């Protein structure tokens, strides 16, 4: 064995080792990449997935239109109590409480031995609930009731009557904007009562917004069958 041959073999052996280490490094690197990728995928898969039924948009039954959709009214804040004002503001967009669901009824028609499916909505009036019979509605507020006392009562126990009384009070005092606000609030407590609607409609008439008043009464009548409301509507339309 000559030294030249030995050195040459040593060099060649080192080169082979280098290649081998490089190959091992590449393999390890690829394994690392694969593991990292698998780990990321695993972490991703661990994230909570919204249940299918949550993702599916809930079928919302057709509900009553809100008066607020028909008429947008600016709220004038009452000066008495700031807390009260905040409460009132919360109801300024809610007028009629949505309670009635009008189901869609499938009707199957057969023409020339072919089945034709038709989806029809029944006439609203056929299924409308009858509004509670109310005697002649007059907007009466007791003379000794002051704004403060009415607001105080409302603050102590807020309900349909207190809100309606305030609405009537403001109507009498020709503060129509406030009357509208409180009528909406009263409606929130008892949607089937025509009284808040009446004050609302009268206030609108006073503001020279007859169309909006007619629309509101018509909306009420589309949900409830009420003779008083019907007569009132005819009355307004006659005036028009």
């Amino acid at each position, binding site marked *: *064995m000559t*030294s030249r*041959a*030995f050195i040459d*073999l*040593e060099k*060649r*052996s080192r*080169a*082979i*080792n280098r290649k081998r280490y490089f190959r091992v490094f590449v393999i390890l690197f690829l394994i690392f990449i694969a593991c990292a990728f698998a780990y990321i995928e695993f972490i991703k898969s661990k994230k909570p997935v919204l249940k299918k039924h949550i993702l599916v948009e809930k079928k919302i039954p057709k509900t009553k239109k809100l008066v607020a959709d028909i008429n947008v009214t600016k709220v004038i804040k009452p000066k008495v109590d700031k807390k009260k004002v905040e409460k009132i503001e919360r109801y300024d967009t809610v007028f009629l409480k949505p309670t009635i669901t009008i189901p869609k009824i499938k009707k199957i028609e057969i023409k020339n031995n072919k089945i034709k499916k038709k989806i029809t909505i029944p006439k609203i009036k056929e299924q409308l609930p009858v509004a509670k019979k109310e005697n002649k509605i007059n907007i009466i507020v007791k003379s000794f009731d002051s704004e403060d006392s009415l607001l105080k009562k409302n603050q102590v126990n807020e309900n349909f009557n207190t809100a309606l009384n305030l609405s009537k009070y403001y109507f009498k005092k020709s503060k129509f904007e406030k009357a509208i606000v409180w009528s909406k609030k009263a409606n929130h407590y008892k949607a089937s009562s025509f009284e808040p609607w009446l004050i609302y409609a009268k206030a609108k008439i006073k503001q020279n917004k007859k169309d909006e008043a007619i629309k509101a009464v018509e909306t009420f009548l589309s949900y409830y069958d009420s003779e008083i409301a019907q007569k009132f509507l005819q009355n307004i339309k006659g005036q028009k």
Partner: protein
Amino acid sequence: MRDYTKAKELFRDIIDVKYYFDSIGAEVTRYKVKSAIEERNAPLIFLIGDPGVGKSYMLKLISKELEKKARSIFIDHPFFDKRDLLKILYESKNIAFDKNINFNNLKERLIKEYKNDKHTIFIDEAQLLNEEQFELIRILGDTKAFQFVLSMHKEEGKAILKKKHFKSRTKVVVEYENLHYKEVYRYIQSALLLENFGEISQMFSLKQAKKIAKYTDGNFRTVKKFVYALLSLLEYAKMNGLRKYSEINSNLLQMSALDIGVIDDK
């Protein structure tokens, strides 16, 4: 004292029947060939195996063992003319060979001469014989006066066996297997210990023997060449004071493999 110079000489690629390594493959082959010769029920015995597995050694060993019992002729080189075989057979019977005589007459006379005695003829590297020579072997085999033991490389041997000369003939085929790594280890150990190189034999571990077997594929000749190259490297390292290579390590094994060309680095 590690005398690599003398130790490496044990692994030179020469056939010395004095030293026989009794590997499982060698023992099985030896038993099968000897049984076939003794039973004489097949005129043709084929010994096939990878080049360097030890076929030539085995052939020489068996022919030596048979010399005492029966007539055996060992032909270690391929003959180029079909008359060469007849000449060898004539000479072994001390009969004058006249090349001017017609080939068929030579053949008939030879058969007559050999009819009473049974002869075993060993031919090494038989894959180098041509069609004519194979045909002659077949004819002589059919006389039952001759029994041929032909050693051939595995791949070529399998192809020759499919030829028309031998396809339908009664024959015995013995395949010589390569060494297992434990046999490689035992071979190195026994070869060194036999010549009192105990210190060097201790340098080899079973793990290293496994690596040698892997590099050499368990081929007997290649194992010898490998160990020879390894001991040469150790000898150089010792002479030049390279302490890094004072013991057998993976680097030295790799360098030995490169030296004998069993691994390709290009």
